[in-house]
């Protein structure tokens, strides 16, 4: 199967591979997928006091497109507020990486991973996203 150059680049030079130390302040984790389906993504975000994602890390078991999708989203979420990160859509990921139709599920999984990490953040740290919600209402 022919991969796009961007997928190959992320696969060969993945950004932000790794995990944060256990118990590190502001860290939230999203783990999605299943080995049975051939993809598991773990996405971690580290959020500062202002609700901004200052760092992100991933580990992915899956095909090249799954690895590239998760590598890409770690780049995208960095510097965004939690609420801004929540607006990332799989279609943007698929478009950026030029994923073929059979690999669209990889981008969906990456979007799910962001949502899962954000849900974990909100569960752990409560409604620290109040300012952002106010912003959304404006």
């Amino acid at each position, binding site marked *: 199967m022919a991969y796009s150059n961007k997928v190959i680049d992320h696969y060969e030079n993945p950004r932000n591979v790794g995990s944060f130390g256990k118990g590190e302040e502001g860290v939230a984790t999203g783990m999605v997928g299943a080995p049975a389906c051939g993809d598991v993504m*773990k996405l971690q975000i580290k959020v500062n006091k202002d609700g901004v994602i200052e760092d992100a890390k991933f580990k992915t078991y*899956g*095909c090249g497109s799954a690895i590239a999708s998760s590598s890409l989203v770690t780049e995208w979420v960095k510097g965004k507020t939690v609420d801004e990160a929540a607006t990332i859509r799989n279609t943007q990921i698929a478009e950026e990486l030029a994923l073929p139709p059979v690999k669209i599920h990889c981008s969906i999984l990456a979007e799910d991973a962001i949502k899962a990490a954000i849900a974990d953040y909100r569960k752990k740290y409560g409604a620290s996203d109040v300012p952002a919600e106010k912003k959304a209402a404006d």
Partner: protein
Amino acid sequence: MERKPIYLDYSATTPVDPRVAAKMIPWLTENFGNPASRSHAFGWEAEEAVENARAEVAKLVNCDPKEIIWTSGATESDNLALKGAAHFYKTKGKHLVTMKTEHKAVLDTMRELEREGFEVTYLDPEPNGLLDLAKLQAALRPDTIVVSIMLVNNEIGVIQPIAEIGEILRAKGIVFHVDAAQATGKVAIDLEKLKVDLMSFSAHKTYGPKGIGALYVRRRPRVRLEPQVHGGGHERGLRSGTLPTHQIVGMGEAFRLARLEMATENERIRMLRDKLLAGIQGMEEVYVNGDLEHRVPHNLNVSFNFVEGESLIMGVKELAVSSGSACTSASLEPSYVLRALGRNDELAHSSIRFTLGRFTTPEDIDFAVKLIRERIAKLREMSPLWEMYKDGVDLSTVQWAAH
């Protein structure tokens, strides 16, 4: 283009041996006659070449040349054998037996026969890939007419106990078909001794050209088939169609070379395969799929736990190998052969099939081992499953959010 990867996919296909190609060429250009032309020298010499090739194929498997029918390849041979025998013997019964690990050319033909009203039993292999003879015995019924079991499995390379199966089936008068596409030149085949009634062959797995194969049809005791391709009545009416002389000459020469060289060639390849195995066996969480004893020398099928098959293939792109997993063909199903062995999802998704051959060198294997070790380590560094395993998490107890 970068330099080509190292070819370790000889079970997918082999290059045509240059000696074979050289023999074929005159039959395309100068000696182009139709072997069925009886009225001039062009036809006569083509017919002689076809019969010489038929004799070479027969010699490799120790049968009468009259028992060899040319086809377009093993897929057609499987179709002719199974549909041909089922249709001919349908008044005797309507039950057929095969294994879940057969090639699709057999499995899909069986599905077609089911649509026509036949009943098929698909036997599970043992965890090592081999057929348990007691399970075969138990599956046979008074109305069983055909059993089809492959000699060498294309994914895991295991050798089925064909001699023993033949004894069981002959005693019951059941037609026995064997797909031997992956076996020629790798295991000795003696059809004088084996109680096999129909056997499928392919040229391109044995350094011959693509597009040519053969079906062995036993004469004593005689096995009858309904032809599936109708026309000019070639091949004793069993398979009509103008014979492709150059292809046939190529298959004959390829099988002649296999007969002469297989003993030494297989020892050389076995040493390389064992070198490859030794090189990767020291790694953690590596599993060989299929029995290592009852196995052709050129096959190694390995699962690298916690690394997904497609990214694995991509990670070792300097090697031309195939994934046991069918992910590469855009289906997300893991290998049905590995699933039939009872491998769990992670292992079934994490396999690579290495198949070595005539032109594989020790340097190729050294390069492959070094590359595999490096890339697997890198992919595992990236794998959340590897991390969980290292943290002592039992993955089978995890509640996955399936998608």
